[in-house]
């Protein structure tokens, strides 16, 4: 089953083309990484696919719903963790979970289940009573990602989830993301090559709003003649000019 299908997806901001003619299919349960340097169009793609930004042209189906015609139904099937930490800083971790669940329309009984679920996946029970704003950066990011799981989305967008985290916090978050594989479709945007290498089923490479490559790591190595994601990525985005 296809979780996401885009056809000619395009976004323009005044005279800048942020995403150009994106054609892509992502299967259910897949962990798909979008790689690209800053300004490649990764975040704009996530915003269009999650119904936060209306495409200038083209369309995308997410869980069978059009992002242009049925953005509310798309939002009911997905959730997003943006690259900035998005938490209520003066609420405790427990209150953040309860608040976000209530905003998703969950009942009191469901909210108690949500807390148990989030605690079990992210181990947040040890900091449940602490104010979110007082937590370390790693815990704040964990909470921010955890909130996106409350709605049990079919498709989860993780936009630069480990940006700014230290290596230990990053590895912990990788472990959690790995546990999600197969349970939901995960779209991960990152510019950390080792992150894409460690987590992805398939990788898409974007540059200047265009999708230059889609495939598995092995296909990436085969098409570029390189032996790791970083070298293969550089080969794809520079067209081999860097080596020359």
């Amino acid at each position: 089953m296809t979780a996401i299908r885009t056809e000619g997806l395009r976004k323009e901001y005044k005279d800048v083309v942020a995403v150009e003619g994106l054609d892509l299919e992502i299967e259910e349960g897949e962990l798909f990484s979008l790689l690209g340097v800053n300004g490649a169009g990764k975040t704009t793609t996530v915003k269009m696919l999650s119904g936060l930004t209306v495409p200038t042209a083209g369309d995308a189906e997410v869980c069978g719903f059009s992002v242009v015609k049925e953005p509310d139904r798309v939002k009911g099937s997905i959730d997003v963790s943006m690259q900035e930490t998005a938490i209520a800083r003066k609420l405790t971790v427990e209150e953040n979970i309860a608040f976000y669940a209530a905003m998703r329309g969950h009942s009191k009984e469901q909210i108690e289940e949500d807390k148990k679920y989030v605690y079990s996946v992210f181990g947040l029970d040890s900091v449940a009573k602490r104010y979110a704003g007082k937590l370390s950066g790693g815990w704040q990011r964990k909470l921010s990602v955890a909130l996106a799981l409350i709605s049990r989305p079919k498709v989860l967008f993780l936009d630069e989830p480990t940006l700014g985290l230290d290596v230990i916090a990053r590895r912990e978050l990788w472990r959690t993301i790995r546990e999600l594989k197969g349970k939901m479709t995960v779209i991960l945007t990152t510019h950390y090559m080792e992150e894409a290498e460690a987590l992805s089923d398939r990788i898409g490479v974007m540059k200047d709003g265009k999708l230059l490559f889609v495939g598995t790591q092995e296909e990436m190595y085969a098409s570029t003649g390189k032996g790791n994601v970083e070298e293969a990525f550089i080969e794809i985005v520079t067209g081999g000019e860097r080596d020359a």
Partner: protein
Amino acid sequence: MRKFSKTFAFAKRNIKEIVRDPISLIFMILLPLALEVLFYFIFHKLTAQFEMANLAPGIVVFSQSFLTLFTGLLIALDRGSAFLTRLFVCGARSSEFIFGYAIAMIPVTLVQTVLFFLVGGIIDPSIFGVGMLRCIPLALLTSLLFIGLGILFGSVCSEKSIGGVASAVITAQSVLSGMWFPIEGLSSGMVTLMKCLPFKNATDVMRLALSGGGDPVKEHLVPILIVTAYVVASFVGAIFAFRSKMRSKNI
């Protein structure tokens, strides 16, 4: 009630954000309270402006002007982080956000009103009476003016610029309300301006509701209508600004 559950959940979060910020409590509660007590004891024998019957209603409206600052700051901070983006993914509507911000400030303004009248009454028991009860619903009306302005400015200003813009409102309430000085000595043009703006009218609404005197139409109804007009205008502007930000997704 389920229909409004997102609004109330959002309002509950907003109340917690406000009351857990000691700075907001200092400016919305402690500073006006200190001014009420100090100005009464220092100046009440010098000028009628600082007799408790005039001072307490003025302080209530002055304290409400800080609602513009803290409502605006909360919205600007929410917009500046990815917090509102996250909530837009929840499918919450702009009306639920606007009411959520506004409802959160109602308990604050009720505490301000009751506290400043209570303390005023303890200092000068002559102000205790039915007038205080009249003041409570009218305080809700005047607070909506400042809440509406807070939502409006918070929707269009950044977290860096909201402080300056909201300070202009606080200064305007202080200077153009006539609460700190008699307006008789001012030029007729200045007095006309003050009568056209909501700040003096909001203060007059509270003062006359407390005292109960004056012409029922000219001195009671007209200021209420002027304040109401500004409340409607500020909320229409706030809804328009917030919705246009949400539509453009440029939050």
